[in-house]
């Protein structure tokens, strides 16, 4: 399995059950899918269906209750296999913005000054130059989210795992960062797993789109997105786009109703 | 006399700033130790009790202090320690160095005319029952036919609290030596009710003990120490001379006036001890379950040091 060269990563029958005092919570159940190298995958699903859990499993931060994950490449020296943009940002309160971003290079670049120098351009791209030496608690939520993105970008990890990375940003900043993300993705040809609640964003960004069911989440449908790249905002006006959006919308509606009822 | 070795011998000796260590202070000040090619390193601890383990271990060479059950037990169990000289006993005549102090109000009320009236009284033993103080008090009670469980014993009360307790009447009787004795009496809350010599005359309450580092390795140094010590005892026997007062003032931090006022302990000029009283104390300890078995006189007492020293000193004085 490990040797199928055009597969970036493969998830096979992943299940994750949490133990709590109120009994077991089955977060995801039998999730199987693969991501090709250089592929951009988007995942959508109802709130609480196990998307974050799935991402943490891939990042190796949680152990699956059952099932397995295979990676085609062994992690390169110093470069983390995957960089996760956490939904809760996960910034270190004891580091400045600069050092938080530079942490993405901690393993690869020995020299502290060099780490910082490499981080500054990304901080600038995120529009946070004025806050380089501020601590996370002095930033707004959207600014914190951007610091987390910068940290993931700077690390040059093989797999980018992004958990609603642009959720707290205004529409314009979102666009700028989407572009940035696509540029980085094209340059380094990473594979990206991207979780979002914004169906339009998912269609706009992804090569393929996975729709998850309500908890316990599994993949209900896999949709290949046919639009050519580079894409333009104008594709949102295409009827195919609208149809696709409507289709996903209906699936999700069903699932949400299931989880609430 | 051997003054051959030019290197002075270094000895670690317990020294407490108490009156009963007077000969040590004198020997140091008058250069008697130096005369004997001894360089004394004085070590201070809170009491001589804490010095017994290092003495037995050989970390301390010489410990002078109260006759203690712990010393006797160390002698019985390991036999590495011996008493070698007197350092203070309950002198028969003269002033009272150690006494039973009673609450003044009680004595004035005539409630304490004889030991049989001790029944039901509250007795304070500042150093604790498992010491010579317990021994004194039990002898005293025996004299009045009072049993131990018929009185209320309080242990480990600091002097300040004792004074306060005398004032409030929460203590009736206490045992104490100088300078506590004089301070109690001066406070007007206590009176000297019975000198200890009336209970246990000639009791050997203070001794000098040698540890294995001298007994097994350097008896010569031990001999020279006793020479210097007994020489100092002779000067001590001159009494409250200006010189002696000056030395004591320096070491005890007590005022000259106060030093003049209080009783100084008796120390035999030849350093001999009352081994019988030690045996009696030992018997009492065994009876109280504080000691498992007795030591013989040979086990705890080594007279050879004072014998040699007395010879040397008498030859010098001639």
């Amino acid at each position, binding site marked *: 399995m490990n040797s199928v060269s055009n597969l970036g990563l493969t998830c096979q029958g992943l299940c994750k059950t949490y133990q*709590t005092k109120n009994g077991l919570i089955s977060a995801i159940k039998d999730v199987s899918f693969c991501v090709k190298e250089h592929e951009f995958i988007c995942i959508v699903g109802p709130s609480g269906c196990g998307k974050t859990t799935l991402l943490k499993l891939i990042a190796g931060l949680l152990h699956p209750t059952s099932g397995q994950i295979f990676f085609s490449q062994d992690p390169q020296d110093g470069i983390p296999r995957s960089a996760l943009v956490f939904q809760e940002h996960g910034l270190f309160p004891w580091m400045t913005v600069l050092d938080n971003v530079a942490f993405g290079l901690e393993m690869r670049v020995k020299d502290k000054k060099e780490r910082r120098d490499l981080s500054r351009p990304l901080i600038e791209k995120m529009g946070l130059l004025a806050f380089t030496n501020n601590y996370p608690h002095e930033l707004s939520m959207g600014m914190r989210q951007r610091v987390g993105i910068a940290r993931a970008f700077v690390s040059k990890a093989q797999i980018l795992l992004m958990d609603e990375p642009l959720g707290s940003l205004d529409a314009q900043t979102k666009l700028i960062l989407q572009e940035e993300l696509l540029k980085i993705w094209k340059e380094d040809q990473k594979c990206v797993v991207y979780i979002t609640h914004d169906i339009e964003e998912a269609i706009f960004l992804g090569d393929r789109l996975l729709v998850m069911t309500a908890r316990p989440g599994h993949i209900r449908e896999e949709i290949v997105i046919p639009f050519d790249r580079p894409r333009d905002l104008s594709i949102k006006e295409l009827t195919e786009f609208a149809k696709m959006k409507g289709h996903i919308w209906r699936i999700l509606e069903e699932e949400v109703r299931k989880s609430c009822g | 006399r051997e003054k051959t070795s030019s290197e002075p011998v270094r000895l670690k000796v317990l020294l407490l700033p108490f009156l009963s260590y007077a000969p040590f202070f004198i020997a140091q000040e008058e250069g008697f130790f130096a005369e004997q090619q001894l360089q004394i390193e004085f070590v201070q601890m809170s009491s001589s009790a804490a010095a017994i383990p290092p003495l037995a271990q050989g970390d301390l060479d010489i410990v002078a202090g109260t006759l203690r059950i712990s010393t006797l037990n*160390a002698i019985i*169990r390991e036999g590495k320690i011996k008493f070698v000289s007197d350092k203070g006993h309950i002198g028969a005549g003269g002033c009272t160095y150690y006494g039973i102090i009673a609450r003044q109000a009680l004595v004035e009320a005539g409630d304490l005319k004889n030991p049989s009236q001790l029944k039901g009284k509250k007795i304070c033993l500042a150093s604790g029952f*498992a010491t010579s103080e317990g021994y004194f008090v039990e002898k005293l009670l025996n004299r009045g036919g009072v049993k131990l469980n018929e009185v209320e014993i309080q242990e480990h009360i600091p002097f*300040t*609290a004792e004074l306060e307790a005398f004032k409030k009447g929460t203590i009736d009787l206490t045992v104490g030596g100088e300078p506590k004795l004089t301070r109690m009496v001066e406070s007007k809350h206590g009176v000297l009710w019975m000198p200890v010599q009336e209970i246990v005359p000639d009791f050997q309450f203070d001794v000098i003990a040698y540890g294995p580092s001298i007994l097994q390795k350097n008896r010569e140094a031990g001999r020279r120490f006793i020479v210097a010590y007994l020489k100092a005892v002779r000067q001590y026997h001159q009494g409250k001379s200006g010189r002696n007062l000056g030395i004591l003032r320096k070491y005890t931090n007590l005022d000259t006036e106060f030093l003049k006022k209080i009783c100084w302990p008796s120390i035999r000029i030849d350093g001999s001890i009352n081994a019988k009283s030690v045996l009696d104390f030992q018997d009492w300890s065994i009876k109280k379950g504080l000691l498992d078995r007795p030591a013989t006189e040979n086990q705890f007492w080594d007279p050879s040091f004072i014998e040699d020293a007395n010879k040397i000193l008498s030859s010098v004085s001639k």
Partner: protein
Amino acid sequence: MDDLTGKKQRFLGLMREGWFTVFIILLIAIAWEWGVSVGWVSFLFFPPPSVIISTFIKLIANHKLTDNTGITLWRVFLGLILGGIPGLILGLILGWSHRLYRLVNPLIAATHPIPKIAILPLIMIIFGIGESSKVVVIALTAFFPLLINTAAGVQQINPIHFEVAKNYGANLTKIFTRVIFPGSLPLILTGLRLSLNLALLVSIAVELVSAQKGLGAMIWLAWQTLRTEELYVSLVMTALLGVFFNFFLQRIAIHLVPWKTEQRI
């Protein structure tokens, strides 16, 4: 960071690893016993474990050990109540109010390092020669760690929780009972652990210099008569009490801080 949760697992976990302590202790005991028998270790000061154990049994049988332990525990309990509760309350208040903290802190800093044993004679003048003086010393000792850790615990509460409470119009009582107390509970328990151990320690130290009963008095007598085996029995008892206290606090923590899976004080 394992995923184990559930009270039962955590409880079992606590027990399972106890063998390590037992193992270490056994190892030391065997080496010790052997050292004494060969004569490398002084019998007088380090009596072999076999002697200590038989003395332990003897002192249990004649109730000396149990009685004295009971007395010490009672003093620890009283001291902890009298010192710990004010420490806890003051800690909550000082953690909450910066102004008060700044006002009172120098006083705390000045009184904390004063050795209570050194002023025991003064305390006895004020509180008498009886039990109360000892309890006062223990209470004064237990007071500080709980105070300082509680204040630190309150200070590490995320400010947003205060904002939420304020936003929903919580009055002072509610802020204390709903935010400050539960939010600092993990550190309060750490402070309690320090206070409890220190209270036991000081209890014994006070008994050592001023009591006729209790573990400390036993230790004093052991030194006074140089029956070192009795000293070790008292020390073993103290260690057992420490282990018991700790176990007890762990159990409390599991119940009181259910929202922290990893809470082990």
